[in-house]
């Protein structure tokens, strides 16, 4: 088990989400499966591959040109809580 109970609690705190004990158990199991799956890639011999994940790709730029932004109604359309001009979140300072 790579992901311990402590780590799950810590990650939940960092991510600002509250987990019940049951949810923690489920989350721990799923995350561990995920991480184990990711470790499959260790089986590939990459000793001859350059560390640079991008290969030849480099210096991708765009020019400094302004293009129209989205309509605000579109920006806000998927928000759960909003008013006519902004997203609304729980108050973040006391």
């Amino acid at each position, binding site marked *: 088990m790579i992901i311990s109970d402590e780590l799950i609690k810590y990650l939940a705190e960092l991510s600002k989400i509250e987990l019940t004990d049951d949810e923690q158990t489920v989350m721990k199991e799923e995350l561990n499966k995920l991480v184990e799956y990711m470790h499959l890639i260790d089986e590939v011999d990459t000793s001859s591959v350059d560390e640079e994940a991008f290969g030849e790709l480099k210096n991708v*730029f765009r*020019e400094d040109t302004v293009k129209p932004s989205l309509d605000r109604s579109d920006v806000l359309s998927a928000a759960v809580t909003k008013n006519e001009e902004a997203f609304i979140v729980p108050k973040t300072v006391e």
Partner: protein
Amino acid sequence: MNYETVIGLEVHVELATESKIFCSCTTKFGGAPNTHCCPICTGMPGTLPTLNRKVLDYAVTAGLALNCEIQKNNRFDRKNYFYPDLPKAYQISQLYMPFARNGKVEITTRSGVTKNIGIHEIHMEEDAGKLIHSETDGITLTDYNRCGVPLIEIVSEPDFRSADEVIAYLEKIKSIFEYLGISDCKMQEGSMRCDVNLSVREVGSETLGTRTEMKNLNSFRGIERAIKFEAERQIRAIEAGEKIVQETRRWDDLKGVGYAMRTKENAQDYRYFPEPDIPPIIISDDTVNRIITAMPEFADTKAKRYNEQFGLSKGDAELVAGSKHLAELFEKTVELTGNPKEVRYWLVGQIFYLMNEKGIAPEDIKLSPEMFAEFVNIASSDRINKQAGKIVFEAMFMSPERFDIEGFIKENGLEQVDDTETIRSAVREVINNNPKTVQQYLSGQTKVVGFFVGQVMKATGGKAKPDTVNKLVNEELNKL
């Protein structure tokens, strides 16, 4: 016990590009909330950020101006944090490979001390949005217009020992960046912001004390007050036998106090990792050389030149060169008139005076070089004397829009009188009206000549040519 304050700064500067760092939304300040947003800067899934070429140019320019070593290999990293000012839940920044390292800035404080401040590194990143906290109903509103505005963060070495040095450094950076045109560095609009890392230690000690970080500083005055407050707080705590806690503190400029943020907010674990969406950026020697060639002359060099070439005093030269706007006004007017001496006279005597008197910032001066030049040409001819010149200058300086110098001189009858007969009769009249003073003169008190000159100037409404008045007063007195 004697303490010294040790300060390091993190200065954030917004770069003055037209569009954002990774998308094509405008960077304009203000605008109705959430109207400068697109899927990229609001962090919609599946979007791809692409670096604005001009951001890199401006960043490298800043790095070179602050005497840094520009790094050839550049990568971006993700700084993960969950706070609603950033809808992606991570900021694209540079942790592992910042584009500039090992710089230095020479500063001169108000008290005349010159020293070098080391630059540890500079990195590029994107700005976050603005949160508006409601006073009443427990909610926070988000405005993401500023999300993705390009920033550089300049991390200094802990080389500052006083608020004075900090202010001198910030003013220097502001001046350099204004010259370069890469940022307007307006603290009140948040285009220049500053975090202060501060600790105190016994004078002579080599080890650093525990530091605190102050955020939310948005004016030179606020920074100065916050530094003084925090240094005194730490010294008091140490004297009382308390331990300084490493923490982030907020400065409340209205109340004039700093306070610690809750410890939970202090938990910092950004889980940095390389940004997989942006390929490496290689800054070639060609790029660096192209930027070096295009660099303008900086305030330091300008001030030295003004002093040597145009005879401005060191202090005046620094004042003019320290503002791009003033420097341009000065140089352009000199170029138009070919008369640096006269331009200097009115610049130092009147512009500085009026700026002080009326509280006008250099960038708010509306007088154009063309109009200044026209004035200088008139003032250096015999048409008006200095006294009348001052009246014309103030009127012109305060509202230069469509100001008519010739018209103003005529309307107010300010043309210089250099008609010998008119002046001579005024001199005679003054001599006749002041027999007592004439007696003083005849008894050897020659300094009363000045009194006669003053009276004649007054009698001619300040318009007589002072040289002629002087000459004729002496002539007439000698006849007695």
